[in-house]
């Protein structure tokens, strides 16, 4: 057993246990040391794999045996390096941001959550992937519940239900897929690698690819793809100010990672990604809660990444991976900035905030840098990464045009994403800082948050700028790092700089022209999460409760505690199946069973 055999995720999981039991002083140490250790462990494995194979594609370092299957918990896929690095970094800085709170369970859950994400990133087989997936669900739900508010508790339940569903879909897909390969005599039915057959196969759905479809849907649930987009805006803003920072980083990006490994080049992802890019903007513009604005913009940004994965060329994949890296940093920075405001004022609605620039300069500047980065302003990280996705699309359009294939989709994608970029600047780049820090004077005079929160923000703000000016080190760890030398030219050329400035200027202008319309009133927007809020509760009330109610009739006391209609409604035919009858009834049932057996054997079966 060498250090190679320890999955980096396990380092964080062990740290999570320590975090839960150690006294406050030890927790500082664990929160900062664990990500460093995990990062070191990760890079030992990555270097090993790269040393053995320059392309570094799906090299596994260590294997375990489980259920007679070979598991590969330490595997280095092409995008593993970039995701593992940012996840460790995020865990460390997020931990720093959260440290002054005396919330041991939240930090512990955050480490579990990040550990699960790291397990997924190093998963070489589908079982390990599923294990990491479920660990993430448990960790993230616990983070939500750690907010200990009524809203968080309910949102947590909805969140958990949806992700449990996603997990079951994923497991069903894995079982089906592996079972079919196994039956076909495949050597390694559980391998988590590129499922190339879905590139062509996604247009059909049949028994042969049902497993892959189920896996794809399971992953898309976590990516927040339609029709599962609403959970992001529903759940994330309900966590504590530090909890949201963690939540914003891992779930969706791990899903992007798995899609990148498994389903790169599947055209469906382009459609879904475009939809998400638009969806995120529309709902973010309508929203009033500052952290919900940012949560919707996650959907929008993940949409960009999905388009990149769907295009599937080297440049597009690298762009999506780099964008995920940059996105985690600036989104966390924005969430930290919003969290600091929440921490200082206790208010979350844009309409109740404003004028904070006077007393919270650090928070304001960090928020602005984050906002510029998400708008891909030149010299920030968003600029250097989003441009790669867009160039990837145009490049692919060129290639397709040259070989005479229809490339309308690529062109449409390019236009929509350009428009979405303008929209991002509108809602996240200007709207968030403007309404929170400037606008009218709300009369609030809160101070900047404690030093650890400030430090965390400054670190990430610095990274946003550094990556914008010197993206080289990031390019060096991308999936197709061999091509990286050409990327700087892709990003910083006059043509693109000019178009970006034009875009930003005009949307900035649009914002201030349309300002009166954009001002939100104090209200709760009921958006697509009506599914959770209205539809499922209605189904529960109108369908499931009647069944349960029908199943029961001895325990009236219980029923009165269930929400819904009063007693006395007609019972369903299923009603009497599970009740505790008097002894005569079961005896009758026994006889009936005997009769059924005999009738089936003698009458129904003609052979008998």
């Amino acid at each position, binding site marked *: 057993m060498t250090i190679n055999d320890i999955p980096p995720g396990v380092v964080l999981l062990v740290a999570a246990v320590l975090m839960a039991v150690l006294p406050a002083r030890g927790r500082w140490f664990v929160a900062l040391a664990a990500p460093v250790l995990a990062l070191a462990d990760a890079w030992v494995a990555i270097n090993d794999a790269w040393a053995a194979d320059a392309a570094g594609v799906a090299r596994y370092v260590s294997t375990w045996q489980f*259920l007679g299957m070979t598991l590969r918990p330490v595997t280095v896929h092409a995008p593993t390096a970039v995701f593992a690095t940012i996840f460790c970094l995020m865990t460390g800085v997020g931990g720093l941001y959260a440290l002054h709170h005396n919330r041991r369970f939240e930090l512990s859950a955050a480490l579990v959550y990040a550990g699960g994400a790291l397990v997924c990133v190093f998963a070489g087989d589908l079982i390990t992937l599923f294990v990491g997936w*479920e660990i993430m669900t448990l960790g993230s739900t616990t983070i939500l519940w750690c907010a200990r508010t009524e809203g968080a508790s309910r949102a947590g339940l909805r969140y958990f239900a949806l992700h449990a569903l996603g997990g079951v879909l994923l497991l069903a897909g894995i079982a*089906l897929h592996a079972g079919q390969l196994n039956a076909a005599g495949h050597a390694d039915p559980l391998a988590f690698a590129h499922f190339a057959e879905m590139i062509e196969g996604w247009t059909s759905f049949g028994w042969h690819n049902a497993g892959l479809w189920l896996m794809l849907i399971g992953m898309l649930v976590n990516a927040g793809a339609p029709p599962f987009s609403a959970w992001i805006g529903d759940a994330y803003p309900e966590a504590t100010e530090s909890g949201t920072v963690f939540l914003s980083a891992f779930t969706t990006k791990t899903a992007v990672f798995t899609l990148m490994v498994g389903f790169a080049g599947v055209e469906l992802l382009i459609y879904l990604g475009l939809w998400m890019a638009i969806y995120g903007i529309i709902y973010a513009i309508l929203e009033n809660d500052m952290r919900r604005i940012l949560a919707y913009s996650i959907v929008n940004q993940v949409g960009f990444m999905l388009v990149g994965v769907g295009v599937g060329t080297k440049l597009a994949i690298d762009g999506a991976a780099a964008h995920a890296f940059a996105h985690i940093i600036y989104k966390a920075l924005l969430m930290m900035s919003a969290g600091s405001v929440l921490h200082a004022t206790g208010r979350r609605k844009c309409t109740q905030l404003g004028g904070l620039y006077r007393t919270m300069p650090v928070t304001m500047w960090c928020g602005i840098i984050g906002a510029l980065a998400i708008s891909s302003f030149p010299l920030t990280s968003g600029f250097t990464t989003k441009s790669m996705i867009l160039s990837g699309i145009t490049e692919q359009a060129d290639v397709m045009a040259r070989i005479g294939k229809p490339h309308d989709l690529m062109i449409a994608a390019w236009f929509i994403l350009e428009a979405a970029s303008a929209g991002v600047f509108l809602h996240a780049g200007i709207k968030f800082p403007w309404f929170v820090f400037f606008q009218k004077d709300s009369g609030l005079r809160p101070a900047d948050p404690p030093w650890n929160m400030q430090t965390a923000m400054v670190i990430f703000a610095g990274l946003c700028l550094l990556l914008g000016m010197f993206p080289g080190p990031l390019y060096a760890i991308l999936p197709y790092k061999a091509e990286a030398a050409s990327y700087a030219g892709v990003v910083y050329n006059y043509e693109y700089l000019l178009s970006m400035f034009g875009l930003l200027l005009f949307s900035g202008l649009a914002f201030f022209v349309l300002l009166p319309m954009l001002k939100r009133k104090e209200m709760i927007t009921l958006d697509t999460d009506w599914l959770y809020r209205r539809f499922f509760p209605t189904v529960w009330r109108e369908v499931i409760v009647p069944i349960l109610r029908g*199943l029961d009739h001895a325990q009236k006391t*219980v029923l009165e505690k269930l929400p819904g209609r009063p007693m006395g409604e007609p019972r369903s035919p299923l009603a009497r199946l599970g009740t*505790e009858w008097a002894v005569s009834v*079961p005896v009758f049932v*026994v006889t009936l069973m005997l009769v059924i057996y005999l009738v089936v054997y*003698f009458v129904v079966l003609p052979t*008998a």
Partner: protein
Amino acid sequence: MELIQLHLPALIVVLPLVTGLLTALLGRGGRGWWISLGATGAVLAATLQLLAQVVYQGPQTVTYLMGNWPMPYGIGYVVDPLNAAVMATVALIGFVVTLYAGRSMAPEISPDRARYFWAVWQFCLVGLLGITITGDAFNFYVLLEISSLSTYTLIAMGHGRDRRALTAAIHYLVLGTIGACCYLVGIAYLYMVTGSLNFADIHARLADIYATWATDAPVYKKTIIAGFAFIMVGLSLKLALFPLHVWQPNAYTYAPAAVSALLAGTATKVGAYGMIRIVYSVMGTDFAFTFLRSDILLAACALMAILVGSLQAIKQTNAKKLLAYSSVGQIGYIALGIAANNVAGLQAAVIHIFNHALTKGAMFMALGCVLYRTGGVRLEHLRGLGRKMPLTCAAFLVGGMGLIGVPLTSGFVSKWYLVQSALERQWLAPAGVVLVGSILALVYVGRCAEAMYFGQRPENSPEVREAPLSMLVPTLLLAAASLYFGIDSGTTSRVSEAAAKFLLGVAP
């Protein structure tokens, strides 16, 4: 030593029978517990020895002749990988729960009855172990009655805390007796046509009879079919398979805490074993599944059990009854594995017999701890216990995750095999139901966990602290075992594979 080794199969049944009688005579004060502990410990050692022998060392079967009478005439005990695994499960649960019961029974059973309690406790194990090991159909019935009669008594002993235990016991008595009678009638039919009571012998003679069915002059067709139907109904009752599960929730709920843990871990599992034995090695799957299509009927009952049991569990407010209904559902998984009629399915059934015994045993014991400290097991009694009884609640939660089938718990291993076996038979809907069952389990386990970890202690409730060590240690032991066998699945899959391949006649 040689002598003991030779008589090991008999000792497993005879030892607790003798010590049980001794306990009834001499077991005043604390002695009953010590005798039981010694007896169950010795039995556990013996079963593990036998298991190692048939699975790892070979030969695959060990035969013991009672009084040295040759087999079709005398009673023979036959140990093979299947019943060795089930016996080890029963003995393990028996030992751990005995360890636990010493303390937990104190407030539930008056001291002057303690020795009878321990005597009956051991008789119950005699019956369960005997059913598993015997190779004789009538001996099976006798031991079935021994275990059932002692079970009725044990359940009724819960009346000190709740009078409803008496009703539950009577209820079970009526149904259990009918079940045993059905079994007996079925065996009588088979005896009529084969003239034998030995399982292996019946199997051999049935093969000759089946051979005539393909010809123009089939013999005994209706008799055998009717006999099989009676046996299946009788065993379904013992197994608590939907819709014949109705005796089970109340029996588990109102029995003393330790008795619930013992029964949940052993009694229905032995019923499942009986069904596997009759279907696979007495009647033969060609008759039962291919000819009569009982797999469809069994699978239908299993799926209904999963759905109805889990849905019922969701709405319970008594945590013990919640677990009891969950057991109805879990039995469904075992039955589905039996019906699948392939290696993966039988493996799932055997592994789930073991895993579910561990998880449910741990959970019932954890509830026993709660009962011991708070005096009740309704959900409101669980509220806020996460902070007051952290270890007990952790054990409960680990067991609960096993029920859901979270990876890295033992429940996942059995579900994995079960889904594989269903897919192998292209049973898509059953595989789906298994997964739906997981979600339902999530809901009912979630209700308990929510009360434990997010609820507040009720106002004016007395202060509680962690359960006494003598109860806590066995509980944690089983919970840890359920985690261990989830991570290191090598042992269980090896044993279950040996059992499944032995039954299906596949070369190991």
